[in-house]
């Protein structure tokens, strides 16, 4: 079962070929970070144009690196959401055209489900099953959620952010601290030489009363806007923080508060579900401090921990092709690709 995956939900143009849902034969990712850096974030119009220019060569590159021809493909899979509409459109149009030209079946894949699947690439980890459910913490720039996975099709969201995603909180914190974009790696770099206990920042849900939380238990939901505002006030009250060399301590304390909030929710969910397997996926899972804290938790609670390999943390098409292959091999039907679905839920 050989699947070509195409991903263009945000600012990464990506194509990959995966065999049997597991073996990554090629994984090409063209990041546009340099184009967006001057703007401090992803600019939709720039992203869409860049996808358009890069899509065909990236797909060709993925096929060449896999050493395969079009006739070797069994299926084409494409991210249909969530993401930026104008970016998703480029990948979907390319996938539809290729499917038509090659006669390959086409399936849509949910970008978030792709992230949840990313731990299974190039691995023999058992897929989720009713006897072996996974608890997955998904941490990206656009989303932060806890998912209970009973199979690749049965995924229950236990909680999610009620305002900013954790990656977004790190980006915004970096902006306040005068650091560059993307903010997560910049904060991590600065935090290395800082004291994470020096400044106290709020952890967890602040002032959430009066909000309807869509049936999610409040205790398993995240909130990062209070953290961001607390940093803003801290900097306002102490305008000389830069001269005093407080940057590293501020970065470390801010990052620690964000990750403590993640770990607190994850641990609660672990106790509630009784899961023996925990995973962490998404771009923020690249952060080494977060990985350390996850390691501590898994040791303390004696659960298996699997963090997505670095190459599959940030957006990529291998996770899209991988999930499509795994679905096909388990007999799940193709998902029709009608249109972009920018707000597609998990």
């Amino acid at each position, binding site marked *: 079962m050989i699947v070509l995956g195409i991903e263009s939900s945000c600012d990464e143009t990506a194509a990959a070929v995966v065999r049997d849902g597991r073996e990554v034969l090629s994984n090409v990712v063209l990041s546009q970070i340099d184009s967006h850096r001057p*703007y401090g974030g992803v*600019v*939709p119009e720039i992203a869409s144009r860049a996808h358009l220019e890069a899509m065909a060569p990236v797909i060709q590159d993925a096929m060449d690196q896999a050493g395969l021809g079009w006739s070797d493909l069994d299926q084409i899979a494409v991210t249909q959401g969530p993401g930026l*509409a104008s970016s998703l459109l480029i990948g979907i149009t390319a996938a539809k055209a290729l499917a038509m030209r090659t006669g390959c079946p086409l399936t849509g894949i949910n970008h978030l489900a792709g992230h949840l699947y990313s731990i299974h690439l190039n691995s023999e980890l058992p897929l989720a099953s009713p006897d072996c459910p996974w608890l997955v913490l998904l941490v990206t720039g656009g989303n932060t959620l806890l998912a209970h996975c009973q199979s690749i099709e049965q995924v229950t969201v236990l909680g999610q952010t009620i305002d900013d995603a954790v990656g977004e909180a790190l980006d915004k914190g970096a902006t306040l601290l005068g650091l560059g974009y993307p903010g997560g790696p910049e904060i991590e770099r600065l935090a290395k030489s800082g004291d994470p206990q020096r400044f106290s920042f709020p952890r967890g849900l602040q002032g959430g009363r009066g*909000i309807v939380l869509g049936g999610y238990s409040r205790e398993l939901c995240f909130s990062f806007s209070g953290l961001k505002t607390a940093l803003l006030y801290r900097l306002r009250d102490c305008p000389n923080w830069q001269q005093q060399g407080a940057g590293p301590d501020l970065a470390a304390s801010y990052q620690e508060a964000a990750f403590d909030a993640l770990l607190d929710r994850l641990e609660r969910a672990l106790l509630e579900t009784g899961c023996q397997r925990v995973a962490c996926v998404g771009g923020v899972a690249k952060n080494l401090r977060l990985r350390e804290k996850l390691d501590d938790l898994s040791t303390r609670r004696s659960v298996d921990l699997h963090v997505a390999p670095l190459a599959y943390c940030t957006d990529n098409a291998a996770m899209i092709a991988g999930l499509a292959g795994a679905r096909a091999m388990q007999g799940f039907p193709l998902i029709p690709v009608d249109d972009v679905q920018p707000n597609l839920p998990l």
Partner: protein
Amino acid sequence: MEIRPFALESRVSAHTNSLRSMKKIDATTILSESAEQTQAVAASLARRLPAGSVLALHGDLGAGKTCFVQGLASGLHVQQPVSSPTYTLVHEYGGDVPLYHIDLYRLQGAEDALDMGLDEYMEGAGITAIEWPERAASALPAETVHIRLEHGEAENQRRIIMDAGWR
């Protein structure tokens, strides 16, 4: 459109008591002491806005724009969490009327806003709440309601200025 934040309906709601206790600085400015109060103001407003209204939310990082939209959502009985639309630009919620939460921060002008279909949201039957509206000022209708959120003196204090206009 004229907005009278304190012309409360007689209908009793969970937010009413909170609203009554709030300080009114002048005809258009309310002093909110907490995120809950800001949400109560927004919820009350949402219940009185005609369908098709466009709200421009002005304010710095952390001023409470998303918090305000959470209040609008609660006023419209939206049953989902309202999270930041920074990455996907638009979040749509089903409530008494549809609520469109739009973040124009990354856009580079009115043309980009039209490309993403901003006018289709604004012409719809829902309520459109726009963060960073100045990024696409010329795309907004003349009857847009401008609301400005400013940090107050105390940590959780905010000034909510109704019908603020461009500034």
